């Protein structure tokens, strides 16, 4: 851990302010909100993946408590269009009309005093379906004889994209390795699911929707568009949110439903997602397929990557990220942190009869890292070079920084080979190779795997404008206000749900104004009282909002200095603000003294005082908005039992560089949490479907998440290369922990099993996969042994 620079400012491991309420069970989540006369909503959801709706029968006794699509007059479907050429838009109905396109799609909403009663009503609503063949496999979906999710398209492809950067220059390479690599469909599984409480306030003439969301302002945009309401009549409140990870970066049809119904029935309404809805209906992530070829010279110099990648986008383009974000990112980052001279990639974003996908922590990068790093290990095995050494020969080098790779990614700073060198030394590669040569006394096979990535974070206007999705981030704003008693209020439009922003943004403010962190309140999660923001996603908050808070506090500091200079009877050039005081040649006044004068004794202010007073709203964007690039090298040591299929992680090392860390303790926590999710991707988590499109992992007994017993503590090592374009040199790092573990762990498994001719090329690698592969490899081994 790097040494704290100040007790509370940038670089200090300040304990998280929000933990006082969260650890005492005093958090206020949507499920904790009780409004007078509130009723509950239960949804009738499609039991089929693909079917025409013939009729919906509502018991006459409940007709005034059940609402279907034809009741939703003037409500617009959710439409998330990408500006990329050839993108085919999908209209996501709020309640299904004509067809259902995935299991769990909303058909009707039922309202009653309690959820149990609402469920009773929902159970009595009968729907006549004409079942259609389901599109459940994204590769089969591209065949001309496939059933169609959206008939009007003529095929099942949201978007096909293609890039070719001199791939023909690689064709003469002597080594050519091709692999088919796949990552499973996953569910993000935050502890708290989605939840909504909606009510209409007649005094304010305003619909207030409490929602468990990462992006309240974006929900407000989408909701007011779908309900055709003035924005001023819509307020979104996101209270405490129990984890997001991308799952809560979407406008839900449920939000539109509850908003519409709260206005119609005139009472507060609530819907809380249950775990089955969570796992089967709302949104999934991560399902990629790669056919990837790496070209290399015999000495390990990489010559090019040629890839065809397919992403299962599900039935609808989700708002605001759209059905193409995953593949658009994939094509732009597949080359990882390496210096490749040639590249070709074709991607397909495919519609299937599954729920939509959303970008999960790491977005496409987890899949991309998996595909690239697995194929690099295959190259290393082919030419007989140590995989870490192959990487070392091809990483972008520190003297090349800042580096523009051939897909025009601008790597801002860092020393990638050094991160790899440290990971290699820390896990002690040489000792592992000796241990492998000796063999294990218990008969297990051990293996070591590396993976390395760089992560574009806080990428802004220039990147998103090109994708043309409904949300393009611009400047980020923050408001800073000194209160009468010398406290500080910070208002931001992003949302903090595990990132610790109530602490870290206070640290940024403290760094500039010197106000004690305990007296700084970071206020977020309410569109009525915070500046506009696209929200929390893409590891952007510390770069963007940290910069905005810093900018606002610097402006506030200047105003304090002007007033302080007057109080000290000194020239402005003679005073400076430090540690919460304005110092002049003959004394000092505190920021609290300045605030007291502004609010209570305006007669003592200088005539030239800024009438804006002690509150400032300021905006920020880094000098370059193409993103900061944090990076990390991961190394895993595993023991594999081929009889039981068990993978035991013996050691795990992460060497990361997130630039200047505002709070190293919180960064460590982010990395631990991300690692646990990466471990889930590697070994446990899979949303399975049958050929009829029925989700098979609809409870947490079927959808396996790693628990405490399965999650070892990785050993962390920090490097610090300040980002050149951001305030304080910070880099976004929130997602990184989840990116590299699948590649490192599966590379380690493959290293362990290389001796018996087994190579895994999918995630998750489950015990049965290992046992089957080991059994399948047996005849091969016998043949090799000449039996």
């Amino acid at each position, binding site marked *: 851990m790097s040494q704290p620079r100040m007790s509370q400012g940038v670089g200090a491991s300040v304990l998280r302010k929000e933990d006082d309420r969260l650890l005492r069970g005093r958090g206020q989540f949507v499920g904790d909100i009780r409004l007078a006369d509130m009723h509950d909503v*239960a949804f009738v959801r499609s039991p089929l993946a693909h079917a025409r709706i013939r009729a919906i029968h509502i018991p006459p006794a409940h007709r005034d408590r059940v609402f279907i699509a034809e009741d939703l007059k003037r409500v617009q479907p959710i439409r998330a269009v990408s500006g990329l050429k050839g993108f085919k838009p999908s209209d996501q109905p709020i309640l299904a009309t004509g067809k259902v396109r995935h299991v769990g799609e909303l058909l009707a909403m039922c309202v009653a005093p*309690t*959820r*149990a009663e*609402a*469920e*009773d009503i929902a159970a009595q609503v009968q729907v006549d379906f004409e079942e259609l063949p389901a599109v459940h496999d994204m590769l089969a979906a591209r065949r001309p004889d496939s059933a169609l999710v959206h008939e009007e398209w003529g095929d099942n492809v949201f978007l096909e994209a293609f890039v070719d950067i001199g791939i023909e220059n690689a064709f003469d390479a002597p080594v050519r390795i091709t692999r088919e690599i796949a990552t499973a469909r996953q569910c993000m599984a935050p502890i708290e699911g989605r939840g909504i409480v909606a009510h209409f306030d007649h005094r304010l003439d305003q619909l207030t929707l409490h929602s468990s969301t990462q992006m309240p302002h974006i929900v407000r945009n989408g909701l007011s568009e779908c309900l055709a309401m003035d924005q001023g009549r819509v307020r979104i409140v996101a209270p405490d949110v129990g984890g997001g990870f991308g799952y809560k970066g979407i406008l839900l049809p449920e939000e539109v439903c509850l908003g519409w119904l709260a206005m119609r029935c005139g009472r507060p309404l609530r819907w809380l997602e*249950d*775990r*089955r809805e969570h796992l089967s209906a709302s949104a999934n992530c991560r399902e990629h397929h790669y056919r990837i070829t790496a070209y290399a010279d015999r000495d390990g110099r990489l010559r090019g990557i040629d890839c065809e990648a397919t992403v299962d986008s599900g039935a609808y383009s989700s708002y605001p990220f759209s059905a193409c974000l995953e593949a658009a990112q994939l094509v732009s980052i597949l080359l990882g942190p390496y210096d490749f001279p040639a590249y070709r990639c074709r991607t397909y974003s495919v519609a299937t009869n599954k729920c939509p996908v959303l970008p999960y922590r790491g977005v496409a990068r987890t899949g991309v890292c998996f595909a690239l790093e697995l194929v690099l290990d295959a190259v290393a095995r082919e030419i007989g070079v140590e995989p870490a050494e192959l990487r070392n020969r091809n990483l972008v080098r520190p003297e090349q920084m800042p580096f523009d790779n051939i897909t025009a990614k601008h790597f801002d700073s860092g020393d990638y080979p050094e991160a790899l060198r440290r990971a290699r030394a820390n896990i002690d590669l040489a000792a592992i190779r000796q241990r492998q040569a000796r063999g294990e006394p218990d008969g297990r096979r051990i293996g070591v795997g590396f993976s390395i990535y760089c992560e574009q974070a806080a990428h802004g206007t220039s990147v998103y404008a090109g994708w043309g999705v409904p949300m393009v981030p611009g400047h980020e704003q923050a408001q800073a206000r000194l209160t009468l008693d010398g406290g500080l209020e910070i208002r931001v439009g992003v949302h903090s749900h595990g990132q610790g922003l109530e602490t870290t943004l206070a640290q940024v403010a403290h760094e500039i104004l010197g106000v004690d962190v305990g007296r700084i309140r970071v206020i977020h999660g309410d569109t009525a009282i915070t500046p506009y923001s696209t929200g929390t996603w893409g590891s952007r908050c510390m770069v963007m909002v940290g910069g905005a808070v810093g900018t606002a506090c610097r402006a506030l500091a200047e105003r304090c200095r002007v007033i302080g200079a007057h109080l000290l009877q000194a020239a402005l050039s003679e005073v400076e603000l430090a540690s919460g005081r304005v110092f002049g040649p003959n004394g000092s006044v505190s920021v609290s003294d300045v605030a007291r004068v502004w609010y209570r004794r305006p007669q003592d202010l200088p005539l030239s005082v800024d009438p804006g007073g002690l509150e400032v709203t300021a905006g920020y964007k880094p000098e370059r908005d193409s993103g900061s690039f944090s990076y990390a090298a991961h190394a895993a040591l595993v023991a594999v039992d081929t009889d039981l299929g068990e993978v035991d992680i013996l050691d795990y090392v992460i060497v990361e560089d997130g630039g200047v860390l505002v709070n190293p303790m919180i960064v460590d926590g982010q990395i631990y949490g991300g690692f646990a999710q990466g471990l889930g991707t590697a070994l446990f988590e899979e949303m399975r479907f049958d050929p009829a499109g029925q989700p098979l992992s609809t*409870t947490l007994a079927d959808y396996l998440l790693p*628990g*405490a*017993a399965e999650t070892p503590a990785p050993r962390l090592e920090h490097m610090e290369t300040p980002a050149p374009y951001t305030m304080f040199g910070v880099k976004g790092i929130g997602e990184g922990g989840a990116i590299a573990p699948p590649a490192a762990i599966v590379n380690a498994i493959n290293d362990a099993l290389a001796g018996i001719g087994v190579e895994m090329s999918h995630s998750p690698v489950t015990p049965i996969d290992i046992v089957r592969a080991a059994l399948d490899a047996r005849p091969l081994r016998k043949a090799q042994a000449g039996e």
Partner: protein
Amino acid sequence: MKPADFRYRRPASVAEALRILDSEGPGAKLIAGGQSLGPMLNLRVVQPTTLIDISALAELRRAGVDGDELVLGACVTHADIEDGRAGAELGALLARIAGGIA
């Protein structure tokens, strides 16, 4: 919780629990801690007509060695074993194992 409607009974003795179980027929389910049954009720995976709550039955909280058998009552919790409330004769091994159960 949003289970389908059910009747709730909380017998005071094992004999009474058995009587209720007999009279209610196959629609009855026993509930102790509810760790498994609770989520299933919530998701309506099971919809019993009657829930017989046996958590008040002291007779079922007994644990101990009987001859060469270890007897654990149906209402002895993992926490009871882990924290030694189920009796010292269960030993450290079971306590350690119970501590590893989520």
